[in-house]
């Protein structure tokens, strides 16, 4: 209790009020003008987890000389943190002498196959009705090359992107393997009354090549390949991998369909809006980079389910300024799920018509998706997520869907992988519903 008035007076002082006659004010007054300005910059202090009140407490027990040294050390840290040309390295050297520098991403033309085949998706089944045991997404046939997608008139191509770097925990790289190996992505959707595999033409396009030592080096190839798939007219269903994958996926959509021609609906506990990293890409900054690079504009973006401690107020303010529609968990808590779900559908319908869904497993509560790279408590239930995904995917032309940050090792049960498949299946059901309705006219 004794400290309260002191802290308040220091706050008032640091906010520019007239100097108060206590020892803290005198100590601050004795600082250099630059140091005085520094201790009044609350945003900067927040970097050190300091507030004016905490600072006042710290100053109280120190001599004027010690206060000066304290502030000087903070200022030195802030200065050292920034890039200094000539001192800091601005790039990471690779080994151009490596034989096969690009071998992992160079596509092998069909002419070098040992055995010839006509293009088209390849069924891995021995039997007409019995599964053969080689796991593929949705038990779909395999398309190896772009020509296979074209020949098969494939409408939905699953693509594994096992890219996994900056997650709080790891193992997003095994997301594609886990979802292929788990049930939940086949059969009739009872609510929609359709079996997506019957209504739509599905294929598993396999995994893309990733450089496990660099997210930066991985994404150009992902962008190219997802663009190849989108170019056939198929909806790209990308299974990650962490949320850095959103960057090349959305960029490929902009490359294929044109900038501003689609709505991005991002289901995610994380805003992915970090703006201060020295790396040019990671999961936590993928949306920021898309906006900053002009790949999309904020008005194209709807975020659902964001929560948790990772998004700073500065990030939120920046997203709001750029026009992003933010429907975080606090909005759901306030207005109720039905109201928020209706707003998501309305936004999907109000956009240019094409929809790209980015679904991070962390949007679900860890009860449903313990196996997510960056889980956050208090998330959506499956009974909220599944119907909304189905409706969203029925509300317009789905040009792509990504399911990211499924990290199976973090969940020794089948639950997270099955939940991931149920989300993918819900979108397929919505797409199938829409196709059936369109045919009926």
């Amino acid at each position, binding site marked *: 209790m004794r400290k309260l008035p002191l802290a308040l007076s220091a706050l008032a002082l640091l906010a520019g009020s007239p100097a108060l006659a206590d020892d803290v004010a005198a100590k601050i007054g004795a600082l250099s003008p630059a140091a005085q300005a520094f201790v009044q910059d609350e945003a900067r202090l927040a970097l*050190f987890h300091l507030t004016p009140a905490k600072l006042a407490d*710290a100053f109280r027990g120190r001599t004027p000389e010690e206060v000066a*040294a*304290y502030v*000087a*050390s*903070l200022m*030195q*840290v*802030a200065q*050292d*943190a*920034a*890039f*200094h*040309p*000539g*001192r*800091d*390295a*601005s*790039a*990471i*050297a*690779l*080994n*151009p*002498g*490596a*034989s*096969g*520098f*690009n071998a992992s991403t*160079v596509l092998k*033309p069909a*002419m*070098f196959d*040992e055995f010839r085949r006509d293009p088209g998706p390849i069924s891995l089944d021995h039997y007409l009705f019995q599964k053969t045991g080689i796991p593929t997404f949705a038990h779909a046939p395999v398309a190896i090359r772009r020509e296979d997608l074209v020949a098969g008139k494939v409408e939905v191509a699953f693509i594994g992107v096992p890219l*996994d*770097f*900056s997650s709080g*925990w*790891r*193992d997003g790289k*095994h997301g594609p393997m886990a979802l292929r190996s788990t049930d939940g992505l086949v059969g009739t959707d009872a609510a929609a009354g359709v079996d997506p595999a019957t209504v739509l033409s599905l294929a598993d396009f396999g995994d893309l090549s990733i*450089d*496990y*030592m*660099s*997210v*930066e*080096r991985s994404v150009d190839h992902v962008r190219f390949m997802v663009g190849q798939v989108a170019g056939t007219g198929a909806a790209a269903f990308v299974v990650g991998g962490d949320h850095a994958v959103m960057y090349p996926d959305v960029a490929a959509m902009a490359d294929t369909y044109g900038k501003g021609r689609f709505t991005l609906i991002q289901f995610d506990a994380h805003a992915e809006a970090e703006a*201060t*990293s*020295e*790396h*040019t890409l*990671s999961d936590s900054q993928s949306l920021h980079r898309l906006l900053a690079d002009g790949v999309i504009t904020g008005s194209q973006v709807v975020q659902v389910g964001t929560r948790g401690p990772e998004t700073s107020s500065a990030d939120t303010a920046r997203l709001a300024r750029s026009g992003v529609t933010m429907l975080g968990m606090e909005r759901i808590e306030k207005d109720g799920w039905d109201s928020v779900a209706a707003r998501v559908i309305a936004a999907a319908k109000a956009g240019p018509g094409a929809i790209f869904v980015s679904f991070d497993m962390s949007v679900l509560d860890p009860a449903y998706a313990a196996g997510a790279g960056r889980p956050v408590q208090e998330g959506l239930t499956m009974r909220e997520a599944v119907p909304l995904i189905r409706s969203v995917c029925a509300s317009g032309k789905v040009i792509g869907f990504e399911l990211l940050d499924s990290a199976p*090792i*973090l969940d020794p049960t089948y639950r997270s992988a099955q939940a991931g498949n149920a989300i993918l299946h819900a979108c397929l059901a919505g797409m199938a519903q829409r196709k059936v309705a369109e045919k009926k006219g």
Partner: protein
Amino acid sequence: MVSRSSILWAALGTGMALAGVALAQEIVIGEDPAVVTRAPTPPKPLDIPKEAEAKLTALTPDQRAYLKSGESRRVVKPEVMFKRFESLSPKEVANYVSALMALKEQIDFKPGRDKDRIALDTSSPLFNAWTLPRPATLNPKREAGPISLQRYVGGMGMGIPTFANAPVALTPEDLIAGKVEVAIVGAPLDMGSGWRDAKNGPLALRTAMGAQAPYGNDMYSMINPGTALRIADYGDIAVDNLSTERSVQHVREAVRTIAKTGAIPIVVGGDHSLEYPDLAAMADVHGKGKVGVVHFDSHYDAGSDRVHLIDHGQPVYRVIHEGHVLGKNYVQVGLRARGPDIDTFKWMREQGMNYHTMVEVEKIGWDKVMEAAVKEAKRNTDKLWISFDIDVLDPAFMPGTGTPVPGGLTMREAQPIMRRLCAENNIVGIDLVEVAPYLDSSYKTAHNSAFLLNACLAGIAMHKKGLTKPHWLSPLSASSKAPLGKEYP
């Protein structure tokens, strides 16, 4: 603060100076970027079957030379190619070869088209924030020295987990003031693995039960390493989990700082990339070629000719290539993973490396292999580093690791050799890497890893006491009948 800049400058200086003007500010792994790799093995030239000659009449001299070079093997097996030629006209064969050559052009690095570096965002206000030390002025004043986290005189501690339940040292001054002999430090670097989670290795070792050093005697030596040695937990070294290349620079700096105080650094990983900055730091402190290494691993880790200059499969190559450790002073134990080819083994022999594979263990038995490895470890240098990848053990003992390989050592093989190496040598440092706790739903991996470190701590304590005779075991605990020596008067 000035020293911070100068340390970073020193760490990056060599690479910068040699990388030329245009790339003046790259992180360059290696001290001589002019020779960054062991020459790649050239492709085996192709023997062109006589029957095929009739189909090759339309080839240009360049195309013929390419075909003979054997480069095509990367794309298509020779027998498949020549079989295909049978159904093609000479003109079509020429097109086929021309397509192969175009593919090679795509595969090889091409300046201008391919990026030879990964650019960072220099506009970040927090560019260096990950390595900045917390200024001492922010803390309450205290004398330098390890910080005890014990509240009670007796009891089991206060619940804050540290390595070996040791007090915490934050600065080199703490290590010096505490006359710390062993500083255990975490380095949660985790990138290249098949599976992930090595970043949680340090956490797992800190929270592992059963091996906290102060809680009793090691029965094999009848020494309590926790009381015989001054041990500290030096916390974790900052890593950039988006770049191994950036991380290893800082690890080298931090390990060097520890070693310069005279403490033995024990680096808990993290992945095996760490062996490189660890041994580079040893060369910084003790001089190049002065330290020998025993490398326990199911993998040879001497890969090269990769796009990245360092990852967890290349540290041995990088260490030897840069001369931090001489090949003849490398002893490898437990190798068995698939990968190294005949040329690789030849290269290892050319370097004078001493390798002891599980093939050898199968052939002559573990006891003989252990004797040979211990002897070799002592032969050329009087300073020894142990680089211990836990996947040298069988996955039965260590399921929680990124690249497990069956057919490995047992704990009853690994513990004695760790104790012996640490007792019979002057240990300058240890790394224990690739503990990935999420891959093991049991306590096993962390528990066994902690006991291996404990065996080595007991060994270091034995060395300090002068108990350095080959395979010395306490006669007191070894038998209820054996006469006690002068150690137990």
